[in-house]
């Protein structure tokens, strides 16, 4: 009797599984998920756990209290945003006009795209190393500006805010541009053509057709550019003033782990960084969800 029951229920269960298209094929995703579980999800929770167990035994919130109680540490939040927000805005908004120009087949498009891939793949460390000489008082940039008479004294661009900003634009702009270009290429040119037939000027076509359709994509581009700029570690250390106005969250966390060996505090700073970063991303995505989110491919319907 009981055997029959289990048989019946297992049959039902299988049916339920089949109904929800769960079968052995899903096992194929298991290795990837396990890898994420072991080396991303678990360590993240482990880090959060560690952050609530300070090494000086000052209670669960000890790390957070000492972080927010210390004006120097608190300022690292402001320093991070002061760099990451303008950089991602500049990168995204500089990318739009260029992407609009290059959205159709234009001569030289492939060359520009290929050249832009170079700074992206060289990475922040190499760009920082090059900029540390290029932006120096005796470097080519200052030399050119002096020779053309635009300035009379070399401009100080190293070991301050500007060095970091310039480096993040050089590595971040190509990323923002290529992403924007891939969004803009997804917009059906027929829509603009229709507007054009109805007499819209090129500015009106951009303002009322292309831009609204592009905005959701721009929101994503902004988020991902922001993620890149939010972890400014190498450029802040090599080009900025990591003890002063480039004392960003990433630098603070690395200092906690490498100079004080306080992995609990470092984890707390990582948690703070992650929460703040995700808060900005979430805010942008919420704003995005209020925008038009229909098809960009046009057609009838």
């Amino acid at each position, binding site marked *: 009797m009981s055997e029959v029951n289990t048989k019946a229920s297992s049959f039902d269960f299988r049916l339920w599984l089949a109904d*929800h*298209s*769960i079968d*052995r*094929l*899903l096992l*194929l995703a298991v290795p*990837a998920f396990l*890898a*994420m*579980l072991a*080396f*991303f999800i678990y*360590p993240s929770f482990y*880090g959060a756990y*560690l952050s609530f167990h300070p090494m000086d035994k000052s209670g669960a919130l000890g790390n957070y209290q000492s972080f927010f109680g210390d004006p120097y540490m608190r300022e690292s939040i402001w320093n991070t945003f002061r760099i990451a927000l303008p950089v991602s805005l500049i990168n995204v908004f500089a990318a739009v006009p*260029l992407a609009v*120009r290059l959205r*159709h087949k*234009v001569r030289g498009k492939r060359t520009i*795209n*290929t050249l832009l891939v*170079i700074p*992206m*793949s*060289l*990475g922040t*460390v*190499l*760009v*920082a*190393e*090059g*900029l*540390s*000489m*290029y932006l120096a008082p005796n470097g*080519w*940039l200052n*030399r050119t500006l002096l020779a053309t008479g635009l300035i009379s004294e070399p401009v100080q661009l190293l070991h301050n805010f500007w060095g970091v900003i310039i480096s993040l634009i050089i590595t971040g702009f190509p990323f923002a541009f290529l*992403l924007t*270009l891939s969004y803009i290429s997804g917009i059906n040119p027929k829509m*603009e*053509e229709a507007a054009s037939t109805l007499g819209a000027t*090129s500015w009106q076509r951009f303002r009322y057709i292309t831009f609204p359709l592009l905005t959701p*994509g721009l929101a994503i581009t902004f988020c991902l550019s922001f*993620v890149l700029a939010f*972890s400014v570690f*190498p450029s802040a*250390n*090599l080009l900025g003033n990591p003890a002063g106005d480039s004392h960003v969250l*990433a630098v603070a966390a690395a200092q906690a*782990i490498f100079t004080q060996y306080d992995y609990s505090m*470092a*984890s707390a*700073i*990582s948690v703070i*960084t*992650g929460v703040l970063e*995700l808060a900005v991303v979430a805010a942008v995505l919420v704003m995005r969800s209020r925008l038009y989110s229909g098809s960009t491919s046009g057609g009838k319907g």
Partner: protein
Amino acid sequence: MRTEDTTVISKSGNRKVFVKSPLGWVIWGSVAFFFINLLGVIGTVVISSFATEWFDGWLPSGWTTKFYLTAWQDYQVPNLLRATLKVALSVVTISILVGTPAAYVLARRDFPGKKILMLSFLLPIMLPPITYGIPLATFIYSLNLGGTLTGVIIVNTVPAIPFVILVLSPFIEQIDPKIEAAARMCGATTRQIFIKVLTPLIIPGLLAAALLVLIQTVALFELTYLVSGPGSNTLVVALYYAVFASGIRPYQAISAMAVFYMLTTFFILIVALRYVNPTQMVSQARSVDSK
């Protein structure tokens, strides 16, 4: 017929505006300005690596290649190259082997919990590496893998697996499921379908994913920096240490080191761009949105 006419007119109209409008000049001027500065940055590195001395003047006072030898020996470039190659190739192999089946499932199936699964693959891309890198490094050290090549390989696969999944999913979606159904009708097992039917069809996608992961792993700094030690440093981390401790060695040697790193990247990039479109470099980021 009529619409085609308008297309032609509006296209030629666009091209005219494109050249004449002041905005066009501003845009092209900015692009030129960007590239001139980029050339300046790269040029400074290359020229200073060949300089006998370069403090003042547009160019160094003399030329030499001796600092390449200094850099090659002092920074142990052969070891660095070997470590970089081992890490990069292992990461590419693991992430392709683990990521491809998962990409297939996500491209073909709809099941409860799919969104959560997707989120676990998207978060490593949406978070700055240093945020999850620090807890991950602590975890790697607690496994006694800190400073080892294994540890470096593990941390680098964390962003690489989602990358492969997000790059490959669109490739798999394009393949007609009827092809698989036909193979199954003819009695092929899932394994055979994978190896004999799907793999040949997604070779372009696999190649693109592998090359993109390769470029990313060679350039990825933060995660490797947090777990590597002597013997497991990759080129980019060694370059960072060299620049950070500038003053210990002549700046020309640091530049020579940077040139070694650039040559490695350029070599991979030239190979990659034969098979990968530049916009594909960001395609994994784009799919954040569609999922």
